C-alpha cells in the first residue's frame, strides 16, 4: 500500500491540536512576546485571510470552506471533551465551555436543548470572530457555526447542520448557533 505522506499544513495542524489537547499554553520561540496575541490579529486571519481573501478566489464557495474549517476544529475539540465522560451530555458541555473559555473563543451557553425535536441552540457570548464588528448584512461567524456543528456531531455521532441565527456583528449582542440533528 502506498504510504500517504502528510502535507506541511497537516504536520503543523497536528502540532497545534496536540498543543490544545495538552492544555499547555506556553509556547517555544516566543520568550519575549509570549503565547497571547491581540484579538484584531486573530480577526484579520479569520475575516481577511479566511474571509474576504478567500471570497476573492472562491466567491460563493467561501462560506463552505470557512464552515468546513470550523467543523474540523469542532471535531477535534469534541474528541478531546468526549474522552472519559461516559457519554454524559452535561459533563461534555461543561468541558466544551471550559475549553472555549481557555482558548478565548467565546463564552458558550446552551440556550435550548430539545432532543425530541433534534434541535440544540448554543449562545456564543463575546465571540472572538465578530467582537467589535458592526453593520454586516447577515451572520458572519461561519467558522464558529461549523465548530459548534463539529462539537455536537462528535457527541451524538449524527449528521448535523449548524446555522448562525443571531450574530453580534448584526447588533444581536451575542451569536446564537442552532444545530439540527439530521
Amino acid at each position: 500500500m502506498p504510504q500517504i505522506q502528510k502535507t506541511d499544513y497537516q504536520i503543523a495542524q497536528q502540532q497545534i491540536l496536540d498543543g490544545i489537547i495538552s492544555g499547555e499554553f506556553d509556547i517555544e520561540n516566543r520568550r519575549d512576546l509570549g503565547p497571547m496575541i491581540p484579538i484584531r490579529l486573530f480577526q484579520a486571519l479569520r475575516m481577511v485571510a479566511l474571509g474576504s481573501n478567500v471570497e476573492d478566489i472562491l466567491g460563493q464557495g467561501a462560506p463552505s470552506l470557512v464552515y468546513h474549517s470550523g467543523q474540523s476544529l469542532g471535531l477535534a475539540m469534541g474528541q478531546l471533551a468526549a474522552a472519559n465522560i461516559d457519554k454524559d451530555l452535561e459533563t461534555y458541555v461543561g468541558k466544551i465551555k471550559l475549553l472555549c473559555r481557555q482558548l478565548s473563543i467565546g463564552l458558550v451557553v446552551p440556550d435550548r436543548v430539545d432532543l425530541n425535536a433534534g434541535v440544540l441552540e448554543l449562545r456564543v457570548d463575546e465571540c472572538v470572530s465578530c467582537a467589535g464588528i458592526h453593520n454586516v448584512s447577515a451572520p458572519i461567524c461561519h467558522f464558529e457555526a461549523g465548530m459548534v456543528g463539529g462539537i455536537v456531531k462528535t457527541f451524538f455521532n449524527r449528521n448535523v447542520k449548524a446555522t448562525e441565527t443571531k450574530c453580534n456583528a448584526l447588533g444581536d449582542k451575542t451569536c446564537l448557533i442552532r444545530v439540527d440533528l439530521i
Partner: protein
Amino acid sequence: MSNIHPLDTRKSQSGEIDAILRNLMGIQGVSAAAIVDNDGFVTHIQRDSEINTDAIGASVQVVFGAAARAAQHVGHHATNMVICENAEGFILSTPVEAGFMLALVTQRDALLGRVRFELKETIPVLKKLFSHYLTH
C-alpha cells in the same frame, strides 16, 4: 458573505427532492446525485456507494465558486454549470437557488451530453420546489 436562506426541513423532507434525485440516478452511469447548501452541507443525497458527504459538499461549493470567479476574470458572468472531468468519470454541479447546488457524480461510461441535458431539464423543476421550501 451570504444571506441565510434556511430550508424548511420538514417540507423539504417530503420526498419530492429525493424522487428527483432518484430519477437522475436512473441515467446511465450516474452514481450519485446530491443537493448541497451554501455552507457545503449535503441536504439530500442518493448514491450507489459510500461517500464522505462533508468533504464532497464543501468541495462542490468551493470548486463551483472558484470556477465562477475564474469565469468573471474573462468577462463571463453567469456560470450555469461546472464540469470536472476525471479518469474515472465526471462531477457536474449546477446552481439551484439561494446558494443551493445540484451535484452529479458519474462513471466513465456516462454519456456526458445526456447527463447535461437531463440536468438542465431538472433545474427549473428544482427551482420551483425550492421557492416553496426556502423560508424567507
